[in-house]
């Protein structure tokens, strides 16, 4: 159903680094799950509209009134790096 190479590719897309063991286990488990899920591809659903939203809703607008945003230092407080005094979220360089 799905092989190791595909699992490696998907892991890269999902920004997960899997150990050898995890890779093997996930390959086997995903294959089992996909085999079950695959049954829906046998259904003839030509012409059926895919669901986009389950309850009938049209666009809803609200008055464009500015409200107070949470203070910058409160939001930065939750960040793993730096503290409330940082200028922003700190990350390692993408080029390193």
């Amino acid at each position, binding site marked *: 159903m799905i092989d190791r190479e595909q699992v490696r590719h998907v892991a890269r897309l999902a920004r997960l680094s899997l150990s050898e063991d995890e890779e093997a286990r996930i390959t086997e488990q995903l294959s089992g799950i996909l085999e079950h899920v*695959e049954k829906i591809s046998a*259904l003839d659903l030509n012409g059926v*509209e895919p669901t986009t939203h389950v*309850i009938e809703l049209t666009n809803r607008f609200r008055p464009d009134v500015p409200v107070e945003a949470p203070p910058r230092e409160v939001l930065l407080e*939750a960040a*793993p790096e730096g503290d409330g005094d940082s200028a922003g*979220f700190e990350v390692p360089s993408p080029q390193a």
Partner: protein
Amino acid sequence: MPASEEICRLSATELIAGIEAGSFSPAESIEAWAGAMESDDLNAFLWKGVEGGAEQGSGHLSGLPVAIKDIFCTSGIPTTAGSRILEGYKPPYSATAVERLTEAGAGLLGKTNMDEFAMGSSNENSAYGGVSNPWDRTRVPGGSSGGSAAAVAGGLAPCALGTDTGGSIRQPAALCGIVGLKPTYGAISRFGMIAFASSLDQCGPLTRTVADAALLLEVMQGQDQRDSTSVGLEAPIELPSSTDLDGVRFGVPAELVGGDVGIEVGVREVFEQTLSRIEELGGEVAEVTLPHAAHGISAYYVLAPAEASSNLARYDGVRYGLRVEADDLVSMYERTRSEGFGPEVKRRIMLGTYALSSGYYDAYYAQAQKVRTRIAEDFTAAFQGVDFVVTPTSPTVAFPLGARTQDPLSMYLSDFCTVPMSLAGIPAISIPAGLAAPPEGGPELPVGFQIAAPAFGEQDLLEAAHALEMSIGFQRLDQREGEGA
């Protein structure tokens, strides 16, 4: 003033009535329940603390403590969603559902354990350890709202909040012998509820009685400007009072209840007894057909992981939660996510990313959305002939801890009877209907009876569930223990 044990035997509506009658004060109620929470030996709570609720006259729920699933953001209070990746996170705001309860005077009674990011049917995927079922501590409480269900069933909280994406309120309620309501999609705001699969996630109550579920639903429901998919209910919910089912029509779908779908013998017996009871109460039982419902699990395990893979992209070690250091940015993301997420969450992110990836989108995601349309149409057609669709909530009673952890697919099939309603966005309730022995032997365990109604049919649903509940007279665990003590 009654003793704490007496307060802790009351349902939420009885508690409110006791306070209104002056039998005890909100502060006495909160204190009694705080003591009950502290005695938790089920690992039902991830954070034990009480906020508010003790003040007299602060609202009609004054004195009622509500245990909150740890997926709801609570301002300044740790919120982990059962994941390592959010360990130590304190949100700067509260979820709308929680805010509405506290504005009505209710108190917050701890944060309850859950499967990581609500992915699971046994609570064994929590990064903070599993939860014991209070009926039999060697068994699971169900999931993902396992902590909430165990807390209510075990007498540690009078009521609790949960979330339900494919059965995560109804299934644990069934396995723990309490009431669990998943409202119509959009009835309650999802703002501040940590997202798993946004097109399916819905908040709802886990309670001792159907009336309690109505009480909490009415406070929480309503449109919210911060969730544009929230619509609320058309009319306020009233406490249900029906005691008969005269002329009410119940449909049994062969596709979910038929002989070949793996429903345990004991569960089937209780289900059939409940159907007879419906007839004794004046209701009619008919067969209905939901031709695509059996494909619900397949569609669900494409759609929910697809949405999750996108929703969980935000956990990248930058703005909150865990960071595992690395020299460059991409390695930091990868290490953080690999160490922060547990096996089931990784599995679903992988599954969802695969289903959405180039070349597979049409075969999986688009096809699953079409199945979803068909399932919703099946329900609409069924509701032309009946008022409600009924099934056992779970095909099995509570299973032993560890029994399904090695086989993800067998775990997924726990949601066989609950997923179709989630896909259709319709409301459904599980009420305890009786006890059955597990197939491997041992003491009898609770069996849940699921009733599903058309979208926004909550009032009628609660009335029918109430009438049935009154007739069944199920003895909850806390009532049994109360008598034994």
